[in-house]
């Protein structure tokens, strides 16, 4: 199976082959790896690659291609998509607008909504305030634009990944 991985904007083609149960051959760009694989605890992997032992935590949300990987305390956010699916997605993206769907970066309570639909906002302008664990966190607009819609409601609790609002780019 061939996958396209995106990490920090960089794209890598990865081929995965299961040579026997618990053993994988992985080609990463032009580098080959033989991986002795075990999952002794759910989502915690033990890999032995060329004698080196790695403990790797991998999280993946339910229907997502985004994998959160943790190795020796460092965190890697990687998107892994099957090659043909990726090609399709890239075609679609080419035709898409610069519309920004803002999602909640954490679970919390919407403390304040500071903007209204139709309002012009500057890049970096604070749109909402989310509160969690005694801290107030500002949600800022990533672009200059017009506020398309607002899903967030003051006083309502949101989960991580819940839509908050949409900022539309200013038409040319």
């Amino acid at each position: 199976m061939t996958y396209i991985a995106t990490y920090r904007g960089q794209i890598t083609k990865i081929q995965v082959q299961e040579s026997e149960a618990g053993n994988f051959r992985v080609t990463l760009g032009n580098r080959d790896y033989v991986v002795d694989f075990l999952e002794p605890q759910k989502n915690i992997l033990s890999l032995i690659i060329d004698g080196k032992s790695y403990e790797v935590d991998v999280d993946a949300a339910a229907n997502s291609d985004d994998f959160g990987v943790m190795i020796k305390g460092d965190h890697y956010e990687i998107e892994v998509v099957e090659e043909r699916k990726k090609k399709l997605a890239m075609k679609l993206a080419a035709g898409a607008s610069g519309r920004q769907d803002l999602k909640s970066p954490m679970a919390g309570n919407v403390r304040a909504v500071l903007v209204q639909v139709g309002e012009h906002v500057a890049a970096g302008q604070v749109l909402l305030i989310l509160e969690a664990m005694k801290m107030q966190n500002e949600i800022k607009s990533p672009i200059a634009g017009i506020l398309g819609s607002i899903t967030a409601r003051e006083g309502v609790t949101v989960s991580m990944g819940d839509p908050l609002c949409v900022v539309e780019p200013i038409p040319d």
Partner: protein
Amino acid sequence: MFKKILIANRGEIAIRVHRACCELGIPTVAIFSEADRAALHVRVCDEAFCVGPAPSRKSYLNMDRILEVAQQCGVDAIHPGYGFLSENAEFAERCAALGITFIGPNTKAIRVMGNKTTSRVAVAEMNVPLVPGMKENLRDEAHAMEWAERIGLPLMMKAAAGGGGKGMRMITRMEDVPAAFRAARSEGLDSFGDASVYLERYVESPRHIEIQVLGDKHGNIIYFPERECSIQRRHQKVIEEAPSTIVDEDMRRAMGEAAVKAARSVGYDSAGTVEFIVSGKTREFFFLEMNTRLQVEHPITEMITGVDLCKEMIKSAAGDPLPFTQEDISLYGHAIECRIYAEDPDNNFLPTPGKIIGLRVPGGPWVRDESGMYEGLDVPIHYDPMLSKLVVWGSTRERAITRMLRALGEYAVKGIKTTISFHARVIGSEAFAKGDFDTHYIDNHFRPADAARPMPHEDVALLSAAIQAYRRDKERAQHLLGGHPDGQEHSAWKSSGRVR
């Protein structure tokens, strides 16, 4: 000794207090909010009562309900932990009125030390060095200008009732004084319900060093070797160590004696901490404030002295005289504590509430875990994001550092992001190794841009994600075909098979 103790707190400190009670043979009563039914402190204490809904003011600060529970189950003492009601003189008085011992100092000590200006007046009378500045509150802008001229720049405008970095303004130009006066008043009123503010000198290259004291009801007060708490983020302590790299025997004794004097000014009779600000340049130290409760970072003092502060605090509240004198306290090795938060250090320390789906706690020699976590815990969004404290001891500072790095490397919390790896970067830094830092160290040296630093195991991360994608896709394919691959689900009722 007490017959039964109610612990009016949650999280790791509730468990710390329970452990002390357990070792003293005293049964404990836990209280919990509706959001904390699954919390570990509820499970480990002998009794447990719900005291209200999730918001603190309706539960953990709900004095009526807490005292009702205390009477209902017949406790003769309440330990408030830190935070919540721990420095609330009214609560201490209400306990006393019901014949319940509040495990903390006398209420006068709580009141006087709870206000910066009254505490400055009290300790100044004992000749404890103060940061040069006022011992009264400012009346108006003109008064502020007058004092600003007298003390000289740079200055700090502070809310008298303040704490935790709130209601503070640094002033470097005289023309900023009026604005700072107005801002600090307004923040003080908002945050603490008290608009009183005052001015003091701003100490440059400040280090935050504090002295643990312990008093009893018989007039004895002793001090312990200092704790260095300068590693802070936004005025919140993050890493503490004991002893400090800049304190020698003479300075230790001088600070200790000053702390005991400060404590004596209010007849202190419990565990408490006198905080000093120390000039990193001149090593002069000045009284900052006194915390009239057990401190988050008390374990590092325990590790270097062998004294169980939590237990001694309870025994002192029960009327026992201190079982040791100043001469019995000696310094033994070095200890470090890291506060582990549910925050994403690579995303501006955003809080990360959520479910802990995997947990492996560090162990081995001289590693101490103070935690309220367990595998399966859903970290609630309502409270402080501190999950646990990791404490190590070493015979030397260097050994404590390598041990802390080792222990941080072992610590695995899955499901939510934590500050574990961030601690490893701070503790592993050259400046930390040299002891060369002040309270601005983290804010100045660990910028958000660090999130883009190169990562050492990129290839392994990529191939791990790809293998998991492959296994997921394979399972899905087999599922569609009706097969049941290796990852078959166990029924909730299938289990170990331990029972025949």
